[in-house]
Every structure is written in C-alpha cells, then in structure tokens.
C-alpha cells in the first residue's frame, strides 16, 4: 500500500487541466440571462404551435451552453459526451415510441382508397 501512495505522490504534478477564463464564464452567464428573457418574452407572443418548439429550442441552447462551458464538456475527453448523448438519446426513444403509440391509436387499421378496394380480391389467397 505504501509504495502505492508513493507512486501517487509522484503523480502529484499532474497534467494541467484547461482553466476556463473568467470572461468565458461571464459571457456564458450573460447569454443565459438573455436567453431567459427571450424565452419569457416570446411566450407572450402568439406563434400558435411554434411556441412550444421555439421554447424548447431556446431551452436546448441554454442547456448546451451550461453543458459545454460550466460542465467543461468542451474541454473534456470523449466519454462524458458519449454518456450524455446516450442518455438523451435513450430518453428520446422512450418519448418517441410512446408518442408513436398514443398518436396512432385511433388510426384505422383497414386502408382506404385504392388499397382498400383491391384488398378483398386477395382475401381468398391469404385465407
């Protein structure tokens, strides 16, 4: 154990991690405040179905700024990015597939139009 800690002490002078300048943090901070103001203001404009899309887009931009700069993902190696992207993607799977069910539940299962017209012709072939 003790040789182990000696070795660790030798590694004390580690590689210098990238230190983000204060100006960057301040810039991100101001940007986040502006985005908050923007999203609040836009909410009170009637854009119909676009309101929610715009709101989500702004939220994604804000989150991206926090992730890249405050959480240092811009300066890290790949594994944290992959973890983050995988989690978001998997959440997307949950939402997408569940919505796919909810939104198609009332679709008719028998086709209309020309497909529906010719289907009975094949009935005796199938059964």
């Amino acid at each position, binding site marked *: *154990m003790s040789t*182990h*800690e000696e*070795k*660790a*002490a030798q*590694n*004390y*002078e*580690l*590689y210098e*991690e990238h*230190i*983000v300048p*204060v100006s960057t*943090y*301040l810039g*991100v*901070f101001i940007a*986040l*405040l502006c985005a*908050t103001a923007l*999203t*609040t203001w836009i*909410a*009170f404009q*009637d*854009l*119909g179905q676009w*309101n*929610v899309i715009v*709101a*989500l887009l*702004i*939220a994604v931009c*804000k*989150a991206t700024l*926090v*992730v890249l*700069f*405050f*959480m*240092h993902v811009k300066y*890290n190696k790949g*594994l*944290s990015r992959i*973890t*983050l992207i*995988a*989690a*978001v993607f*998997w*959440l997307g799977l*949950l*939402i997408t597939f*569940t*919505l796919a069910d*909810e*939104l198609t539940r009332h679709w008719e299962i028998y086709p209309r139009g020309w497909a529906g017209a010719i289907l009975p012709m094949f009935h005796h072939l199938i059964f």
Partner: protein
Amino acid sequence: MSDAATVHDANPTGFAHQFEDLEQQRDAGRLGMWVFLATEILFFGGLFAAYTIYRSLHPQAFLIGSHLLEVKFGAINTVVLICSSFTMAMAIRSAQTGRKKGTIISWLILTMLLGATFLFLKFRFEWYHDYVDHIMPGFGFHNMPQWGANAPQVQMFMCFYFFMTGLHALHMIVGIGILTTLCIMAARGKFTKHYFAPLEISGLYWHFVDIVWIFLFPLLYLIRY
C-alpha cells in the same frame, strides 16, 4: 457521491487505494458522476415523457393549468439558478487556480444562498399560495367552474407541476447539503490546485439540477397560447 470524493484523514492527497494514481481516480470520479447524471436524465425524463403524452392529449387543460402559475416567480427563479451555476463554476475555478480557501468558501456560500433563495421563493410564494388557493392536488383541491370539462386534466397538470418541481426541489436540497460538506472540506484545507475533484464532481451535479429547471420553466410556466 463518488468514492474519489472521500478524503482519508491520514492521506492529505485524498488518494484512494483502489486506484493506481490520482489521474485515474479523477477520471473515474468524473465518469462516475456523468454516469449518475445519465441515470438522473432518465429519471426526470420519465416524468417529462409522461408530461409530453398528457400535454399532447389535453392541450387545453394544460393551457388553463399553466395560467394558474405566476410567470414572474418562474422567471426570477430561473435567473437565481443561472447565477448559482455561475458562482459554482467560479468556486471550482478558484480552487483550480490555487486561491485561498476563503475565496472558495465564499463562492460556495454564495451558491448555497442562491439555492436557498430559489427554495424560499418556491415554497413560500408559490406552493404555499397554491395550497391556500386550493389548487394543490391531494390537499383540498377544488375544481373551478370556469375550467368546465377540462377540470380533471387541469388537476393532472397541477400534479405534474408539483411532482416535477417537487422532485427538482428535493435535488436542490440534497445539493445544498453537498455544498455544505464541501465548505467544511474547504475550511479544513483539503482543496489544492491539484486536488479539487469533489468540487468538480459536485459542480456537475449542481449544473445538472440547473439544466432540469431550464426545461421545467418553459414547459410548466410558459404555456400562454
């Protein structure tokens, strides 16, 4: 919290024996926190998924429900959390650049105060008023006549409001607890230019809680049309 965050008193470098060196320890701690955040994304995400389904099924009711919330409190709280993310980043940076422990502690305390402000505004001015106005589900919820047939789904919206912001508030409380621990560690001089992993990892957690709010704010408060 990762094991890398634990400091052995006999070991001033905070080095944990299962690792080969501090670099591996820091890498492992950071990856561990990111994996934990991935689980949190799916945890909150489940609620966001349910919210998405119900909002697409009952858009009118969600519109009514959102108008029951006060945008100004949501907006102020968003600003408060963004400030707290900034102060948290500065706390980590001050450790990284080898500042005195007093500086680190000051930034941490500022972050904690902002977090406490968030919670105070939420509980005292939003939740308490909702309770008094009988729009807190499960605690004397009264349907209002102007909701008409949408009433049950308005209650559904308020459920989501309280569940999601409640879960978020719980995470904030835990976060403030973690920051308190960090203050104590900083006061004992544990953090140096080379060892500040607990700060960094806690920072990741704090920023994540901020990001959850960044999504909660428009989805809950900003349904105006």
